[in-house]
């Protein structure tokens, strides 16, 4: 099993890399052969040069840290708030009927549409970006926490009550741990959305950050420079997603998705 699995995995990685090489090579060739202007589509080699230059000069690095900090702070605030309110709703069902409808109503507002208001309220600095990111990261964690807290089988609760467990004990010993896999699904969605949130915030009004830099370079028709930033952004998103997954495997260790995989499916 492991030997075969290892071979399959290696083949997959090989194919994946090959696909990348073919794609990038084709792109480079197409740009050269058809002499596509650099302000329309830059060649991969030009993007790489812009990336290296940006990293060497430190420009990309300093803007990266600004955006990264906005993403992390907004994520922590939004996800933390979503989890906390989700737990409150789970503990007090009354809240679900009274408060939750308003939360859903707020969620239906496109955050992009309220971003300008938030920038006016919180200024052009990092705070407004953190707030926008938090409002976006908030809901997926909230909704998944609420669903997760309901996921405990009725028999589990009955059994614990029969063993004289209090409501609080049922919550702490069964419902909360049972909710964690769902919470992590929310966190995974939230971390990726957080990157979007920070960039959207920077688009609306900022003095630093990768989103701000994209607008600037776009204005100067520096397409290779913009593509270089896109690479950094996607690496940031992938890295954070992998980080959340790594933490998830540690925390909800009892869910082994590979173990449950259906043969042939």
């Amino acid at each position, binding site marked *: 099993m492991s030997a075969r699995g290892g071979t399959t995995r290696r083949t997959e990685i090989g194919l994946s890399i090959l696909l990348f090489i073919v794609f990038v090579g084709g792109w480079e060739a197409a740009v050269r052969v058809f002499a596509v202007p650099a302000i329309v589509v830059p060649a991969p080699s030009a993007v790489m040069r812009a990336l290296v230059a940006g990293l060497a000069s430190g420009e990309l690095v300093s803007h990266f840290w600004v955006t990264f900090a906005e993403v992390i702070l907004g994520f922590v605030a939004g996800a933390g708030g979503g989890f906390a309110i989700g737990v409150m709703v789970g503990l007090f069902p009354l809240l679900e009927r009274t408060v939750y409808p308003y939360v859903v109503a707020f969620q239906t507002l496109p955050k992009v549409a309220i971003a300008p208001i938030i920038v006016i309220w919180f200024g052009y600095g990092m705070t407004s970006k953190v707030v926008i990111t938090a409002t976006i990261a908030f809901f997926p964690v909230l909704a998944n926490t609420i669903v997760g807290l309901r996921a405990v*089988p009725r*028999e*589990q609760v*009955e*059994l*614990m*009550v*029969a*063993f*004289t*467990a209090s409501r609080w*004990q049922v919550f702490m*010993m*069964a419902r909360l*741990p049972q909710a964690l896999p769902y919470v992590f699904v929310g966190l995974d969605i939230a971390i990726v959305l957080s990157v979007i949130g920070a960039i959207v915030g920077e688009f609306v009004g900022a003095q630093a950050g990768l989103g701000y830099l994209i607008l600037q370079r776009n204005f100067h028709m520096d397409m290779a420079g913009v593509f270089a930033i896109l690479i950094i952004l996607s690496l940031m998103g992938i890295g954070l997603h992998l980080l959340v997954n790594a933490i998830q495997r540690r925390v*909800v*260790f*009892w*869910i*082994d998705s590979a*173990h449950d995989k259906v043969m042939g499916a």
Partner: protein
Amino acid sequence: MSLGTAATLIAARVIDKTYATQAGDDVVALARVSFDVARGEFVTVVGPSGCGKSTLLKILAGILRRSSGELTLGGRPVDGPSRDIGVVFQAPVLLPWRTVMQNVLLPIDIQRQPRRAHEERARALVRMVGLDGFENKYPGELSGGMQQRVGIARALVHDPSLLLMDEPFGALDAMTRESMNLELLRIWGESRKTVMLVTHSIPEAVFLADRVIVMSPRPGRISEIIDVDLPRPRSLEMINSAPFGVHVAAIRRHFQSLGALDA
């Protein structure tokens, strides 16, 4: 108030249970259920689905309120869950993030007692249910039958005098089920608990029990209580013996006359 004698552990007197449905009319789940269970006795409850046997067990466990009637456990009226009861349901409902040992110790955690004082007993119970060496495994690594054994050890860890089991082997295959039945009898013999076990399998009910409470549906009521005079310890060969067959046939005839079985 004292029902029964000193040897009586459970005394139930004319217990009724009525559910209010959303349509507004009442459904009678149990009607005038009365019986005694002596300390150390193994009593099974058998009946077709919908006869209220699970409802009865939940009322005994104190997790469901009876509508009327008197119910005492060890002379004290039942008005909620008791620390003196261990329960096993059809699904093992183990906590997947707890090891076998930690699952067995769940009632100890719930009762806020120190784990350390009960670890020895928990270990012995894990051995008794045949899971020696699996103490630190997680439920996901165990088969259904093994998980159910963990559930049985868990129900015994706080040394309750009464073990309530609701179709504990209903989800297992026939062969595992037979060996679990033997195992349960052995555990019962060793621990001298009082056991009340609900099942819809007539042979299982007869094989395990000192007495079989036969229930009939709509409304759920006791239609007969049968003494099973088969010798103990019991073995699987007894299933083929004439006296065993007589008991099984009697109960089956009973259900047929009620139209509760199609067989």
